[in-house]
């Protein structure tokens, strides 16, 4: 693909935001965005995982699966790489940042099945990115995810939840805000062709 890695990085944040344009990575995003602190923590973790696993999965696909003719196992290998890396991350966070570990709770292991991470790995194969492009795209998507969750956390924080009807508090209002943000981001679509 002729698109420059630099442009790809910025496109992944704004015009093709993995969360608001492709709607991947919702579950943890909706639940953790109650607090700005933990949103930042989770966002950084996702960013880190995305960047590294994008690079790793590119290598696995092009240097292992293709030469060996095992392309049909790509789902399995990608998810194992992601799971292994997140397991490693979990051990590191538990050791060095226990407060974050307890705040994130089940959402740290759930990074493994964060569709955004798996989706990005699939995208970079489908769109035939080079190694550098994959890293740029992975990093950009990570930043995009971080930006999106911070935006939601910020809005929820500022919004006086007492004005929200009882049934909508929490997940309900988060969904509506995200829906509005997603509608807004549709305006970005097509500005940069990431194919």
């Amino acid at each position, binding site marked *: 693909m002729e698109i420059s890695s630099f442009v790809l990085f910025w496109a992944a944040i704004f015009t093709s935001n993995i969360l608001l344009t492709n709607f991947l990575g919702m579950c943890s995003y909706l639940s953790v965005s109650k607090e700005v602190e933990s949103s930042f923590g989770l966002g950084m973790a996702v960013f880190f995982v995305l960047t590294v696993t994008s690079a790793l999965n590119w290598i696995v696909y092009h240097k292992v699966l293709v030469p060996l003719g095992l392309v049909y*196992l790509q789902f*399995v290998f990608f998810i*194992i790489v992601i799971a292994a890396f997140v397991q490693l991350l979990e051990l590191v966070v538990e050791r060095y940042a226990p407060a974050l570990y307890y705040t994130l709770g089940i959402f740290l292991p759930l990074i493994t099945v964060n569709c955004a991470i798996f989706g990005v790995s699939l995208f970079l194969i*489908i*769109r035939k990115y080079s190694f550098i492009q994959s890293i740029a795209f992975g990093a950009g998507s990570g930043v995009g995810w971080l930006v999106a969750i911070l935006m939601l956390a910020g809005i929820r924080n500022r919004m006086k939840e007492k004005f929200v009807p009882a049934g909508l508090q929490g997940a309900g209002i988060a969904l509506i805000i995200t829906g509005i943000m997603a509608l807004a981001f549709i305006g970005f679509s*097509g500005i940069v062709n990431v*194919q």
Partner: protein
Amino acid sequence: MNEKSQIYPILFMLAITIIFVGILATMFRLYEPKIKRNEEQSYQSQLLLLFANTLETKGIISKDNLLKQENLQENFSKFVHKLPLDLPERNAYEVKTDSEVLGYCYDILGNGLWGSMRALLALEPDKKTILGLVVYSQMETPGLGARIEEEGFRSQFSGRALYENGKLVDLVLIPEDQKPERDNEIRQITGATITSSSVLKMIKDEIVKFDMDTLTTHKDKEEKGL
């Protein structure tokens, strides 16, 4: 936590991986022939469908007989001839009966929103007018971008002139509920602008490649007196 050594987790993981990958590999090998056959039949049937009307109106074979599953392979070999092509990942076909050429078909490749897309572009014998289009492989959003496979969208391409005054026509998108006023207007799928324009871009980019290559190939054959 583990009185057993550190080796056990690794061995366990290895064992589980081997078991499940083994199951998957077996299933894949088992079903691979059937999956390939399904894909091939779908491909052949869609290509033949593009020329079904022509074949029927000329009284050569009825649509039903043409597309019957038992006859597919036979009909395909009878009417469709693969042309030598220098382009990777693409194919070109000449569709003809014993007496005349009914048209050409290009197997083209493009990029959609979620992934790549492939289409069969059928052309009249003069290679200047589109006979029909069928998108046979795409990864767009089901119910949205995937609607480019629907009759309502792709029938718009039938009968379109590819060239105007010697230049390639620029097809443009108009909203779905608008009536096309000019010859180069195509009604898009509402909410699937990117996917719709990907189809147009694919046709525009690919036609150029084929023209250069197939024309060269044919010229070569003529020069060599084949």
